[in-house]
């Protein structure tokens, strides 16, 4: 099992390193200038050189992403619980949530910037895109309780609160965590899109602004360096949420268990 896990980790890493090697070789062989396509070594050097600027921007973007994810999680779970209580509430409120989901965030961001400060607008954008997957998955989980188990709870005259606490909440946990994994990635995308639209400047600006700024200066290596940090942030968020999901589900839910375990 350990060997399999090692193999699973090493294979994609080798492919990634091989891709970087081919990229480096092509840039070197074709003598492509850095303002067209920087080599991975140039990007790495830029990352080190501009670390103070880039990492402070990274903290800003990550801060907004995490704040939006926490707010989206709390509000989406609260709304899902509310929707689960009544079909009428679901009919009344769900269309609004769907409208927010299907409207591209890039189209909403400029409007938000009119009414809100740039920082708040970025936070709201990240919140909006993270909110719906958590809401829909949690609502689905709360509605997908095993009928046989419901019969058991009915048979023993469980109260509404007991059914909720001992049956519906744990039943909904796998779907909620799946929604959280999607929402985590989308919160970062929402924050980046809003930062691009906001075009905020000066202290406290995020990585997306650094990309725009570097583009204006034709500092392509810095653009790639900022992009690499965004990708790594996305991977870290996904990895952390996947780990949380594994921690909570691996004992009992098929989605988090290895075959034969």
């Amino acid at each position, binding site marked *: 099992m350990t060997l399999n896990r090692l193999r699973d980790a090493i294979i994609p890493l080798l492919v990634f390193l091989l891709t970087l090697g081919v990229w480096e070789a092509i840039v070197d062989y074709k003598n492509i200038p850095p303002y067209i396509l920087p080599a991975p070594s140039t990007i790495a050097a830029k990352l080190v050189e501009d670390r103070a600027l880039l990492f402070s921007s990274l903290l800003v973007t990550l801060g907004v992403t995490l704040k939006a994810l926490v707010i989206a999680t709390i509000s989406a779970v609260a709304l899902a619980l509310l929707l689960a209580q009544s079909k009428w509430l679901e009919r009344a409120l769900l269309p609004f949530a769907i409208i927010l989901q299907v409207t591209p965030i890039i189209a909403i961001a400029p409007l938000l910037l009119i009414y809100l400060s740039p920082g708040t607008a970025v936070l709201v954008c990240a919140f909006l895109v993270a909110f719906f997957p958590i809401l829909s998955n949690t609502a689905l989980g709360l509605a997908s309780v095993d009928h046989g188990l419901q019969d058991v709870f009915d048979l*023993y005259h469980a109260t509404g609160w007991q059914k909720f606490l001992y049956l519906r909440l744990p039943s909904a946990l796998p779907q909620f965590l799946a929604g959280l994994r999607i929402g985590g990635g989308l919160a970062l995308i929402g924050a980046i899109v809003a930062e691009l639209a906001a075009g905020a400047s000066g202290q406290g600006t995020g990585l997306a602004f650094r990309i725009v700024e570097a583009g204006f200066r034709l500092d392509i290596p810095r653009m790639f360096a900022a992009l690499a940090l965004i990708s790594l942030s996305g991977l870290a968020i996904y990895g952390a949420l996947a780990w949380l999901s594994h921690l909570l589900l691996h004992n009992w839910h098929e989605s988090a268990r290895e075959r034969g375990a």
Partner: protein
Amino acid sequence: MIDAPLISLQEVSKTYANGVAVLKGLDLAVNAGETLTLLGPSGCGKSTALRLIAGLIAPTSGDIVWSNPTLRKNLGVVFQEPTLLPWASVFDNVYLPLRLTGEKREKAEPRIRHALARVGLSDFAAALPRELSGGMKMRCAIARALVTEPAVILMDEPFAALDEVTRFQLNDDLLALKLELRATIIFVTHSVYESAYLSTRIIVMSKVRGAIIDEIIIDPALTRNAEFRHTDHFAEICRRASLALRHATDENIGTTP
């Protein structure tokens, strides 16, 4: 002999919301202490009758009368599937009925341990359902049904999904539990052999009218063990139940367009 039946189904009909009428005017009396088996082809309404007795669904018309209504509040039910909480241990699954009555875990523990011992799961209290075999999951469901010491136990084809060996074993375990608990058992099955082995009375139901085609009384004093399965008496019960079941099925075929 007890005069009034423990449970009386009087002219009970059930039509589901989709318009399917499963039972029409079923009359059935369940006596205290018996093991009554409802035998019939699929769709004859035997599981519906059990769910009506359990109070999980309401009849469209007719009455279900309990001679002692307090017994109705403490039923043990075992479904076709084990219906265990997958995230909870065997111990916590058995604790569930007591937990729902507000009983503290520490206070309930001796009863849970006793229920687990009764079904041979004492060593698996900490296991999760996924770690158990099909037969062990069903034992856990039986322990959950027994933990409240019910006077009436309802079983809806509980062993249908199990292999023959496990099924025979659980049949014997159920008979042993019945002797110990002296509970009334209403058992639903489509297995002639299972009904003949477990029951003190078999009711064969027809699909067409949800009506009773035959009633087979079996001496409760008979010793039920592996040898019983090879006796002429067992064969005779099976023959009669099979004929009644065939009659019920032929009726169904006869009315199929």
